[in-house]
């Protein structure tokens, strides 16, 4: 037997083993990615199914008589320009009585089924329609928002079941709802309130506008602070600073900061920004400052890597033409590194958008019913709002929590896609 035959046989045997190993490793990869996708799918399915109920709600349509008795006026007189909430409430009570008769008197149905918000809405509507010149005695068909007990009852089809369950409704109240439902007076609407209102005690008027604005202000402050600071730190460290023990220490410190748990930054913010500098509590300004501290290392590290990745030839070329070092950096190196820097910054900002812990420490975890119009007003942020609502016993709030998660995911996906698009477009033009 020739040597070459032996060696070929050995190679063949080994080749089979190698091919088996290769198939095995590919399988591992496929299993891993399938599992990952499955988890992702489960996550989205669970969030979406929980969030969907938050995007619609029900109203009960009632015929409202502008009874002269309520306004202490006479039939045919114009409606007064100013209406009290109390008058609106009694109009609604009359409307319910008109629809349901004796059942209404016994069960105090307005308070049990209709949202407190509805009275305010009615008052505003009638005052706004003053020009229409409604007269006392007119009848109007108007929709009223159900409160969370009524809403839950409708959603769970309790109106059709005989069991009395714990929606906080009495048997009579449940029957009343059932009658209204059968008469086709209950209609479903898109929940615009969720996007136009801030947090509220009652689920039907709770929205994410305040949290969105709070997050917007905080991110704006964080970006304005962290981007220039991080960028110039990176430029100095990478392009100008001498390589010595001090800069090495600074470098290590920055890498370590990137790994510090965010709650620590929250504590720092509490101790320095609030207790020492006496900045306003719960304000997006302070939230933004804390988030800036948190994202700073991410931006510095990403920017340094982007700067380091710029081909050295460009620097020599600039210097050899007689450009100063600052000119070389700002005319050539920085533009080439910009896509990487922006990508790092956007990813840092996306992290900041999802950050809850440091905001808890500086008091952005509060019930705030008003949307912040400046970064100095008390506010909460999107992830904190999710946290607050998720904890709420009312299921309507936890579905709003899931809806808020969806909104936040949309923002995160948009931000990350922006990072990808930026990088692509720079790569093409560079």
């Amino acid at each position: 037997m020739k040597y070459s035959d032996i060696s070929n046989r050995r190679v063949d045997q080994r080749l089979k083993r190698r091919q088996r190993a290769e198939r095995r490793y590919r399988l591992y990869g496929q299993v891993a990615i399938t599992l990952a996708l499955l988890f992702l799918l489960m996550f989205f399915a669970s969030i979406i199914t929980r969030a969907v109920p938050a995007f619609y709600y029900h109203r009960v349509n009632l015929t409202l008589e502008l009874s002269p008795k309520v306004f202490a006026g006479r039939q045919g007189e114009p409606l007064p320009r100013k209406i009290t909430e109390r008058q609106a409430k009694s109009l609604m009570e009359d409307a319910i009585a008109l629809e349901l008769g004796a059942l209404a008197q016994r069960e105090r149905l307005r308070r049990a089924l209709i949202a407190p918000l509805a009275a305010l809405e009615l008052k505003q509507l009638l005052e706004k329609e003053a020009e229409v010149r409604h007269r006392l005695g007119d009848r109007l068909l108007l929709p009223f928002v159900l409160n969370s007990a009524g809403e839950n009852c409708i959603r769970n089809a309790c109106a059709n079941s005989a069991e009395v369950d714990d929606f906080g409704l009495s048997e009579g109240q449940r029957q009343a709802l059932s009658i209204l439902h059968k008469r086709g007076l209950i209609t479903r609407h898109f929940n615009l309130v969720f996007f136009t209102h801030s947090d509220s005690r009652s689920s039907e008027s709770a929205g994410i506008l305040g949290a969105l604005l709070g997050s917007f202000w905080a991110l704006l402050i964080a970006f304005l602070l962290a981007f220039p600071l991080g960028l110039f730190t990176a430029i100095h460290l990478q392009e100008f600073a001498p390589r010595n023990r001090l800069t090495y220490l600074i470098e290590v410190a920055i890498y370590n900061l990137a790994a510090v748990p965010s709650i620590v930054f929250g504590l720092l913010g509490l101790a320095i920004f609030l207790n020492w500098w006496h900045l306003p509590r719960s304000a997006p300004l302070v939230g933004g400052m804390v988030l800036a501290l948190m994202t700073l290392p991410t931006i510095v590290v990403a920017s340094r890597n982007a700067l380091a990745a710029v081909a050295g030839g460009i620097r020599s070329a600039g210097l050899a033409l007689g450009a100063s070092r600052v000119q070389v950096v700002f005319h050539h190196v920085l533009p080439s590194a910009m896509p990487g820097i922006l990508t790092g910054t956007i990813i840092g900002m996306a992290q900041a958008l999802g950050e809850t812990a440091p905001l808890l420490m500086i008091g952005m975890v509060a019930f705030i019913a008003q949307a912040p119009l400046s970064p100095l007003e008390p506010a909460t942020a999107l992830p904190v709002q999710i946290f607050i609502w998720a904890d709420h016993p009312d299921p309507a709030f936890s579905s709003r929590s899931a809806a808020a998660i969806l909104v936040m995911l949309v923002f995160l996906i948009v931000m990350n896609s922006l990072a990808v698009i930026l990088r692509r477009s720079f790569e093409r033009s560079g």
Partner: protein
Amino acid sequence: MKTQQNKKEQIAPKVVARGVNVYYGEKQALFQVKLEVPHRRVTSLIGPSGCGKSTFLRCINRMNDVIAGCRVEGSITIDGLDVSSLDAVALRARIGMVFQKPNPFPKSIYENVAYGVRIHGLADTKDEMDAIVRRSLARAGLAREVSERLNDPAYSLSGGQQQRLCIARAIALQPELILMDEPCSSLDPIATARIENLIAELSRNYTILIVTHSMQQAARVSHRTVFFHLGRVIESGETTQVFTNPKRKQTERYITGRIG
């Protein structure tokens, strides 16, 4: 030819180096380098890798300044002025440099040539700038290929074209001296031939100092040749003399391929 050369020899040399020592940290890279580069001639520096040719080249326009731990001793003068007494930025504006790998800026062809002119404020109007850019591209033998697409990115050019663009960029500043650090090492033979022709043409107006690994190239393009070995100048002289009748044993061994 011979008489013309003799006449030029009498003009004071462009660059004079005396006792140049260069250290990278503890390591000494150049030892007592003594060298003269004649005016408007091509001088090539040859020698095995790591012998200090490029290091010497970078001493002339002080590109070694930006390397941490690099120290230069001795004197290098250009037209009698010591380079260490000049401002590095002003010095480099007077000396063009072309690198081993083509390194155009990631900008348009036009911007690449205009950049140096712009930062030194050498053109007052757009027309003046256009004229400088077109003239430089023409001198670098690139005008015909790129005149229709001056706003295209420089990276859209081929390697050889990029290298000629880098030469155009350097001569846009009307330098007194052009340093070339193995300008053809990443190019194919055709692109190399074009650059060599260009060097011959440029030597009518510019003093050129070229580092090369290829002895044929040194023989083809240069009037004078300097042989470096282990950080020392072993021999320097007229190219024909160095290649046909080297005075030193080491030079002979190198050019016949026995060391390096």
